[in-house]
């Protein structure tokens, strides 16, 4: 052995991990989140003149993040609603992605859901046609049916083409997003005539959800009760509906025959064929489920926003939901946490932009940093970083 080649410095090398303890894996992810937030603080102190790297300044910086979501009753409920909508789209994507059907069209599938619900509300709720004005509950239900159907159609088209002609689903679903967007622009001008000069719609007042929640214990004034206004009642109902969907999706993927078929098709279509699963049928059926849930998310958005807009109705959540689903490894229960983190970051970031009056693009950088750390941590969940000395490595090779 040549002594000159011997190194006294440890040489890092990577090894694939055996299946990691779930708590250890969670620990790594939490550590990554904390590290990411820490780096945000450092970057902020370097770039923003009102923030410096000391205890007091950093404390108010991080409090700002927290303040974005949790300091008032209204913010907490808005947080729950935003989380629920994003989660619902993520849940829609989970079965498709598990099947390795790269559905990049959740944005459009959700948007047509919003559009369908708003069109129904506009024409059957008394705004577009004064002769027909249904009551809140029946109108709301028809809106739901319309939204789910629209989402299904938008998802079924690429699925049919994939199953029949083996077209590329990533491009197909992606392009359908643009079709949806322009369909909305067109509909606002052509069909939703209460549109105004800036090309946006006035909010509708018909088709309200029933009032189920009237008060809750106040979080900003402990010991008192907070009287919930109707709009926030809607937020809570949205939260409840998505909670049910989460449980349903968990059971569907884990304990049903459908769920099993999805994972087999995802692992290998040949195996699926061999065991007698009709791949075409599974693809189409799963995409219908995916589209229906996107449509449901669209309905929830329509109920809350009471209007449709090309840019801000779905606002990129169809793509953010991919991240939410993927980080949680398509596990609906974990997705609650990943959606929660993403919404927390978004709200915190916009709060920082306001409080420090900085350009809204800088907080987007913060979101990027934290997500980068969390995604990066997946590497350490899958691989082990080992250190060894050159001599030792050779001994092993002997």
């Amino acid at each position, binding site marked *: 052995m040549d002594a000159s080649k011997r190194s006294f410095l440890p040489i890092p090398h990577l090894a694939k991990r055996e299946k990691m303890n779930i708590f250890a894996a969670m620990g790594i992810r939490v550590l990554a989140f904390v590290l990411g937030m820490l780096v945000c603080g450092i970057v902020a102190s370097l770039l923003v003149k009102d923030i410096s790297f000391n205890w007091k300044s950093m404390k108010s910086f991080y409090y700002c993040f927290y303040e974005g979501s949790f300091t*008032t009753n*209204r*913010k907490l409920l*808005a947080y729950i609603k935003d989380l629920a909508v994003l989660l619902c789209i993520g849940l829609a994507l989970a079965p498709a992605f598990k099947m390795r059907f790269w559905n990049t069209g959740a944005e459009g599938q959700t948007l047509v859901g919003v559009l369908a619900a708003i069109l129904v509300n506009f024409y059957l709720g008394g*705004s*577009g046609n004064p002769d027909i004005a249904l009551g809140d509950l029946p109108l709301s239900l028809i809106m739901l049916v319309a939204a789910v159907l629209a989402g299904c159609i938008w998802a079924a088209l690429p699925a049919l083409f994939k199953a029949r002609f083996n077209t590329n689903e990533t491009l197909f679903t992606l392009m359908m997003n643009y079709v949806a967007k322009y369909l909305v622009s067109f509909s606002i*001008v052509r069909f939703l*005539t*209460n549109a*105004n*000069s*800036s*090309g*946006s*719609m*006035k*909010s509708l007042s018909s088709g309200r959800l029933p009032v189920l929640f009237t008060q809750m214990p106040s979080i900003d004034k402990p010991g008192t009760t907070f009287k919930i*206004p109707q*709009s926030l009642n809607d937020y809570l109902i949205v939260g409840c509906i998505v909670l049910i969907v989460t449980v349903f999706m968990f059971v569907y993927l884990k304990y049903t025959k459908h769920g099993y078929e999805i994972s087999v098709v995802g692992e290998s279509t040949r195996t699926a064929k061999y065991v007698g699963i009709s791949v075409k049928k599974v693809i189409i059926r799963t995409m219908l489920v995916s589209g229906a849930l996107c449509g449901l998310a669209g309905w929830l958005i329509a109920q*809350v*926003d*009471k*209007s449709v*807009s090309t*840019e*801000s*109705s779905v*606002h990129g959540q169809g793509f953010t939901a991919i991240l939410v689903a993927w980080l949680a490894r398509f596990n609906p229960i974990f997705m609650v946490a990943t959606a929660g983190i993403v919404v927390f970051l978004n709200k915190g970031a916009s709060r920082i*932009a*306001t409080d420090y*009056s900085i*350009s*809204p693009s800088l907080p987007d950088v913060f979101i990027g940093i934290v997500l980068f750390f969390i995604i990066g941590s997946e590497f350490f969940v899958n691989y082990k970083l080992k250190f060894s000395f050159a001599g030792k490595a050779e001994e092993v090779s002997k």
Partner: protein
Amino acid sequence: MKKISAVVLALVLCVSMLSFGFAEGTTVKLGVILLHDEDSTYDLNFLNAVNQVAEDLGIEVVVRKNIPESNACYEAACELADDGCNVVFADSFGHESFMLAAAKEYPEVQFCHATGTMAHTEELDNFHNAFAAIYEGRFLAGVAAGLKLNELKEAGKLKGETPLMGYVGAFTYAEVISGYTSFYLGAKSVCPDVTMKVQFTGSWYDEMGEKAAAEALINAGCDLISQHADSWGAPTACEDAGIPNVSYNGSTVGRCPNTFIVSSRIDWAPYLTYVCTQVANGEPVDTDWVGTIATASVVITDINEQAAAPGTAEYVAGVKAQLEAGTLHVFDTATFTVNGEALTTYLADVDTDAAFTADTEVIFTDENGSFFNESDPALRSAPYFDVQIDGIELLNAKF
């Protein structure tokens, strides 16, 4: 005498305390919702006013930028109210219905919306609309344009027999129609044989589209161009072609030193000052408020001597004094005709509804004659002048 005045003062104090119930000198915290950020000239104009008012009155201000015209606006407005703002102001037309929803949940907070149309029909005590009589500024800019045309005519530099102006508009809405008509009437007041062509782009901000529209108008023989859209498209097209330009929303003299004549814009600082002062004193805020040239809400920039006709500044100052005094009406029905006839009666769509029903008589008469009563605070602050008068040719329409 002293006794009486003391009694009167005491009475006034009692009444004011009874009727409003506010403590003297409420601390004002102003919340502002902007559609974009400072990169948009429209929002920057608001932001500058907000910063100026914050400094002048020494009040705390919270600004939320990039708030879309959706439920996000409602949430932002509620958050501002929760954060202790007692005045919440939004700057974009589409924010209105969402501001209204927030206003219903926070009756003790004043919600003020620029350019909106719904306050006078909603009848909420804490929801208000505001606009400015920008047509007065346009009229003055039109006077400057007319003087320039006269100069060209005398020098024999007109492209055609009679002076022709071109106008690049965004949409065929009342706000734009009111703008180009007042501009045309201003020019006509000094240059009686002027006519005008209008080209719409269908967008508030489309640099290439506005430039192309301006170039088309120049090629069609226009001697002077003006515009109602937010980009640099039209002014730069004019500078390239050496055609005089009357601008909007701020001076373009920096990039167009040889062709920029004058520009008009709305200054929102007087309105914000008014609202904050009313709230501080516990006084109610007007449902519809219209700033005028007399309240300094409508301002015109310095006139660019290099491009304007000699003596423009003095002449415009004289017309401005007449407007301030109220002796001159911009939409004086004696100065224009519709299909060859004078306008004696007109129903405008003042109350917003889906079918755009014309509902209110807007031809008024005072000691200075009959006039179209645009943006009367007793009716509605946002413009409703949508008459197509003789002398103006629309080349297209965009809704």
